[in-house]
């Protein structure tokens, strides 16, 4: 990847972030900055807190302590208009979460009309444009249940893009997909990255992380263990925990041996 010029303030800034569910401390002091146009992949074993971190960035999870800034606005400020900030942050879920009672086009137009108060014609135009972008223009009138998982996820991406976000968050976007459907979704994400979208991606797709990400962040046990270029973190990990994780990904049979590391959290991913 060509190095991006990352001038100005960071698009996403996480400062000393803590999050507990009851007695279970999932995030233990996270500091992270993501510049404008940067693509950052967050990897780590399940229960490492990576999904929780992502969900804290648009405040779907309320942090216990610490600050989150997106585009210079502090989301953790109790007086912030969270709905207004979220309009600038697109979120893509593992389970797609399309609205099943609406057609594909309605999934894309309803949020624009209700939230952004766009007119009917403009909403339809933006929807058609974004459906084209994810290669699903012909599915405009279909209902989500008639689409494959990969198509649903691309519609979900188009729905987020229709709101004109400055930042896109991806929470394991391909984990619920059959292997043969993963490629189409990753292709859409790759194109988005090339267009200069600021992206934070929680994923297990190492090839994607290696080829598309500007930075890879490895999390384990609620802390960031390594943060660097893909070549550095994936290619030449410095920490034992990172090496363990990567070797388990490459050779799942090893997983049995290493199971005791940190698998308590559950839930968020």
């Amino acid at each position, binding site marked *: 990847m060509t190095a991006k010029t990352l001038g100005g303030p960071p698009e996403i800034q996480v400062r000393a972030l803590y999050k507990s569910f009851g007695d279970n401390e999932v995030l233990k002091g996270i500091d992270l900055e993501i510049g404008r146009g940067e693509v950052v992949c967050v990897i780590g074993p399940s229960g490492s807190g990576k999904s929780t971190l992502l969900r804290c960035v648009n405040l*779907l999870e309320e942090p216990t302590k610490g600050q989150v800034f997106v585009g210079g606005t502090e989301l953790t400020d109790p007086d912030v208009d969270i*709905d207004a900030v*979220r309009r600038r942050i697109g979120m893509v879920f593992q*389970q797609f*979460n399309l609205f099943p009672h609406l057609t594909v086009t309605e999934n894309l137009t309803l*949020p624009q009309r209700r939230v952004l108060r766009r007119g009917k014609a403009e909403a339809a135009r933006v929807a058609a444009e974004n459906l084209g972008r994810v290669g699903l223009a012909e599915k405009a009138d279909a209902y989500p249940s008639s689409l494959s998982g990969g198509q649903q996820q691309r519609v979900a991406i188009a*729905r987020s893009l229709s709101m004109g976000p400055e930042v896109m968050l991806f929470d394991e976007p391909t984990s619920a997909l059959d292997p043969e459907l993963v490629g189409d979704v990753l292709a859409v994400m790759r194109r988005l990255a090339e267009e200069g979208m600021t992206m934070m991606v929680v994923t297990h797709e190492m090839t994607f992380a290696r080829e598309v990400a500007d930075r890879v962040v490895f999390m384990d046990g609620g802390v960031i263990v390594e943060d660097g270029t893909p070549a550095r973190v994936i290619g030449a990990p410095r920490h034992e925990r990172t090496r363990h994780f990567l070797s388990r990904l490459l050779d799942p049979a090893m997983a049995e041996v290493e199971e005791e590391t940190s698998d308590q959290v559950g839930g968020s991913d």
Partner: protein
Amino acid sequence: MADTDAVVQPRKKGLTRRQKRSLSRGAQYAVFVAAVIAFAVSADWGRLKNQFAQADIAEQMFPDVITLALKNTVLYTLSGFAVGLVLGMVIALMRLSSVGPYRWFAGVYIEIFRGLPALLIFIFIGVAVPLAFPGTEIVGGTYGKVALALGLVAAAYMAETIRAGIQAVPKGQMEAARSLGFSPARAMVSIIIPQAFRIILPPLTNELVLLFKDSSLVLFLGVTLEERELSKYGRDLASTTANSTPILVAGLCYLLVTIPLGFVVRRMEAKAQEAVK
């Protein structure tokens, strides 16, 4: 069971399992047929026909039983359903509210109105309230009273149904809506409630059937001739003719509506089952 000696003795004495089964089924049929015959022989058919199926009395009920009585029953039911739906929705949302007193109030409401007989509510609205507050008039006269009484009862049941429906919508739907910038209220109205209603359409229709039958409690309100519904109409005519045919006809009119509605509910449930796969 004698099955244990099957190992020792493959062809055991006595009845095999298959023989036992057909014997048992045969016995059940025999009892049923005997009961039907006993009833047919012992019943006084002439008397039954006289009391319940007099064609001229039945004839004299038409068209009023449809144009007046059934019409009023439907009207009472629908107005009660409308009041119950609106009130039930409010109670359901209160029950799910983050504000404690709202939840508390909704809980008490549901417990009270599910726990009391509908008849008592009718008497309360029809007799107790006018007695206690002589000046007040419930808007819509009898229709208003019935709508209110039926609605108050129905709201308690519907609130629980609606709450369950809202909670049955996957959590991800609210999260997706919120992350697109919907406020909680707008997400509820545009995204969650439409899906909840799809889920609860069968139980809501069942509630409609229940209300349809409960509208017969109007009998206890004291209504004008024009306001009579099926039960009252049937009973009045039964006493003037000293014959039970009107009761039978009124009953058939209820079934005319409830059986098709029940069929619709089963169809919807089957379809919903299919959608889940």
